[in-house]
């Protein structure tokens, strides 16, 4: 028996510090089983509310109740006799009705969610009208909401900790423990030890962003504590043509007009894991493929009238953080950074057209949503649509970065390309299930030579959309139609999906940089500005690669080219089929801050609702562990035995001490040595 081994071990501590040097096993290791706790639900705050989950300080504990169906959950809420409980439920029970019930009952101290075996019809915890406060008023009608299955749970304040657990071993352990200790004679649960869970995810921030920022900035002691951090990252942008001209490329190219092609980079989910296949990856891939094709079309053609800015906005899920900051800088003449002496100042009025690529799942029709009809450009899209069905809709604009631009310049000609006319066709918007399966994506692993792909698939659909868009943009900037044979690169599209959905150590990422990445998708959650964000850098380099100009062979001198605010030089692979041959690329890609202006304006009025105010709480440990909670009877017995022995020994020793002169007869000093 293992237990006895432990007793022996601890008897042996008497001998030495053996255990510390030897194997370092502690009693704790026998009592607690740590399970995978990487996907917690945590707290975020805005100007008015706190949302998300938190445990108690030091962790919430409760007896495990493993639920396979709704009836199991109902049973424990109704009949549980030894609260608090921690139900472990499949994702299909994670509904707003159930959460509302769990919030109401005092019997629940936490919740674990595991992947349901049966496929789900829908799973989206975004609101039915995403970003209601920062979108244009009237763009989401009660009769026609954009996210019809949205439960809005993402924006609820849940008073108990919630974790998503995928690890099969952890779940099996929990289930076996539940069967062994808990899952019988529920009436007598109070009288026996129960298999329990401790959920630790205590969130330091509370109330709202302004409160926690104020508390974080209060220098009341020498060791200030941060309670929350603004959500933030970087936007990625690149210009089709450099913003500078002249022989040395040092003279700003002023008074140009621009077309912005935008997409978003981020998604979110209830738990600390994102998927984001339909939103944002489809739009992102379409943008990158368009940029690549357009660059190929215009490589030897400097006869342009307008420039194209490809902008990938970050933090759009949380009240358009990226586009708000972008527009904030446009309006103040701060875009691009260092504009003025070295670069042209771009203002919002320099934008002739705004095209946003939103969710573009493989559907029959691509829908162009607009408020200010860009008639010319629409005609060009129709002319270049090839095999696609193109439709238009002008009754309400779906959520997107365009809202921020239109708020600041109402007559901006613009459109959003999506796969839906009314509500989202994506039933898993902003959730862990918006994955490759939701997109019906299968990796084709193409090489350049084998371009013949049988059948239709999402890759071909994106290829068609990108080709249509790139051709239309070509005629928009050069005022002539494109008669070439070039179409969007299917291999590139296929690889990009693979990068963002399955394996970040993919060929595209190997082509643009040298780091070996982990063989899993990177998180698309915006995160806080202090933490590093690999995905943003990688997307930026990819955009730079496809829009860059080759200036020579790849070598160490490349990165030593004269520094310039408009241009950067990188060694990158020649093509996806030839990763080892590097060339020197001159790229126009750059990053801009994607932190809400609310956090950089002094004395910002938090109640104004003008800018995104989302912050994320800080936390200490995030931990999940299974243990055996002793019954009250056992605890009482232990304390009773201890106390009785203690009190009795006090009396006994006092008695012996006071009568020791009688008890122990004085010894004769001349006692002779005795023998055995």
């Amino acid at each position, binding site marked *: 028996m293992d237990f*006895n081994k432990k007793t022996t*071990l601890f008897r042996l501590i008497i001998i030495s510090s053996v255990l510390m040097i030897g194997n370092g096993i502690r009693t704790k290791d026998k*009592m607690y*089983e740590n399970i995978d706790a990487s996907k917690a639900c945590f707290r975020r705050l805005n100007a008015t509310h706190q949302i998300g989950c938190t445990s108690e300080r030091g962790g919430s504990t409760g007896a495990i109740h493993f639920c396979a169906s709704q009836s199991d959950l109902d049973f424990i809420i109704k009949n549980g006799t030894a609260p608090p409980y921690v139900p472990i439920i499949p994702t299909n029970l994670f509904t707003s009705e159930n959460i509302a019930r769990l919030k109401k009952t005092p019997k629940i101290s936490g919740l674990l969610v595991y992947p349901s075996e049966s496929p789900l019809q829908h799973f989206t915890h975004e609101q039915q009208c995403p970003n209601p406060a920062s979108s244009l008023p009237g763009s989401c009608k009660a009769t026609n909401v954009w996210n019809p299955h949205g439960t809005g749970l993402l924006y609820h304040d849940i008073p108990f900790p919630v974790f998503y657990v995928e690890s099969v071993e952890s779940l099996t352990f929990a289930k076996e423990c539940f069967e062994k200790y808990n899952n019988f004679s529920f009436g007598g649960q109070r009288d026996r030890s129960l298999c329990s869970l401790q959920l630790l995810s205590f969130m330091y921030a509370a109330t709202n962003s302004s409160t926690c920022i104020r508390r974080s900035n209060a220098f009341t002691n020498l060791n200030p504590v941060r309670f929350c951090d603004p959500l933030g990252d970087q936007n990625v942008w690149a210009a089709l043509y450099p913003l500078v001209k002249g022989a040395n490329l040092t003279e700003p190219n002023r008074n140009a007009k621009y077309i912005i092609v935008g997409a978003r980079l981020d998604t979110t989910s209830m738990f600390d894991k994102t998927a984001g296949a339909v939103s944002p990856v489809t739009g992102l891939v379409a943008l990158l493929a368009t940029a690549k094709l357009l660059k190929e079309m215009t490589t030897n053609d400097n006869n342009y009238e307008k420039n194209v800015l490809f902008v990938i906005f970050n933090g759009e899920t949380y009240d358009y953080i990226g586009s708000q900051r972008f527009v904030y800088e446009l309006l103040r003449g701060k875009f691009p950074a260092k504009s003025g002496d070295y670069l042209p100042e771009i203002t919002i009025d320099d934008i002739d057209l705004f095209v946003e690529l939103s969710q573009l799942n493989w559907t029959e029709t691509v829908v162009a949503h607009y408020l200010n009809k860009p008639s010319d450009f629409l005609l060009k899209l129709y002319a270049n649509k090839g095999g696609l069905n193109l439709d238009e809709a002008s009754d309400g604009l779906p959520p997107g970065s365009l809202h921020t631009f239109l708020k600041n310049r109402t007559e901006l000609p613009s459109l959003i390309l999506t796969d839906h006319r009314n509500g989202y066709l994506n039933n898993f918007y902003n959730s862990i299930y918006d994955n490759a399966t939701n997109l019906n994506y299968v990796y084709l692993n193409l090489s350049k030579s084998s371009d013949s792909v049988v059948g239709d698939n999402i890759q071909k659909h994106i290829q068609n959309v990108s080709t249509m868009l790139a051709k239309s943009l070509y005629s928009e900037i050069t005022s002539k139609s494109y008669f070439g044979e070039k179409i969007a690169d299917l291999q590139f599209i296929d690889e990009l999906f693979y990068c963002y959905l399955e394996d970040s150590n993919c060929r595209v990422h190997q082509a643009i940089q040298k780091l070996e990445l982990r063989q899993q998708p990177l998180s698309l959650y915006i995160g806080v500005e202090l933490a590093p964000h690999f995905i943003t850098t990688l997307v930026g380099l990819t955009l730079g690669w496809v829009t860059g100009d080759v200036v020579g062979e790849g070598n160490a001198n490349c990165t030593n080219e004269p520094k310039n605010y408009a241009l950067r030089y990188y060694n990158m692979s020649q093509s996806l089929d030839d990763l080892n041959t590097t060339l020197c690329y001159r790229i126009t890609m750059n990053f801009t801050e994607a932190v809400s202006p609310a956090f950089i304006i002094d004395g910002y009025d938090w109640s104004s609702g003008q800018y995104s105010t989302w912050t994320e709480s800080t936390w200490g440990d995030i931990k999940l562990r299974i243990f055996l909670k002793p019954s009250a009877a056992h605890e009482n017995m232990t304390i009773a035995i*201890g106390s009785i022995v203690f009190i009795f020994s006090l009396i006994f020793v006092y008695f012996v001490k006071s009568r020791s002169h009688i008890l122990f007869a004085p010894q004769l000093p001349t006692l002779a040595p005795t023998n055995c």
Partner: protein
Amino acid sequence: MTLVEFFGCTFLAFGPPFAMFVFTIAHDPVRIIILIAAAFFWLVSLLLSSLWWYIVVPLRQDLAFGVVFSVFFQETFRYIIYKILRKAENGLKKITDDSTQLIENKHILAYVSGLGFGIISGAFSLVNILADAVGPGTMGLKGGNEMFFLTSAATGLCFTLLHTFWGVIFFNALDNSNKCYVGVVVVSHLLSSCITLLNFKVGPAGTLIPLYFNLVLMGLMAYRVAGGSYASFKSCITFK
């Protein structure tokens, strides 16, 4: 909340030594010093045991090896502290208030140093376990059973008291050059320590019963050695 368990086990393991300390040691500074000195010597024996264990690499996995040598180290240090105390007697006479009692009744020094050994060994065997008992859980999830903390505390208490009794018997035996009693102490110590190795097989009750049997035996022996008898016991409880 097993703060409850924590306090229960603490009271069980350290309650009796605490009572002994309060009523028999605390009033005399010299006794406190000797108690601490004994505890220090026990720690030195622990250090040497662990060094020895560390040096003999091939036998590191064998608990029995460590146990046996640790017993010998402890008994050696009991002998060393005996020698030192006997040498220090003259000095102690000068600084203590009730020199007559402390020096005349040689069992007091033996008892105090034995308790010093016992308290520190009890503390070292239990502190880690008690520290882990504060969390929300108890033993039994991965093998073992709920009684673990209680039986560990009981074992710890048993060894604290055994050390006290061994101290009394051992010192007296050396005073009287009674090699037989010295042997009894060493054998008893070896036996009790090795019994705990059987925790694997016979369960907590199986080791606690022989341990406490040994404790009673040693207690009676120490009582005899210190001058107690059935007659004095009778006169003690009948208040004559």
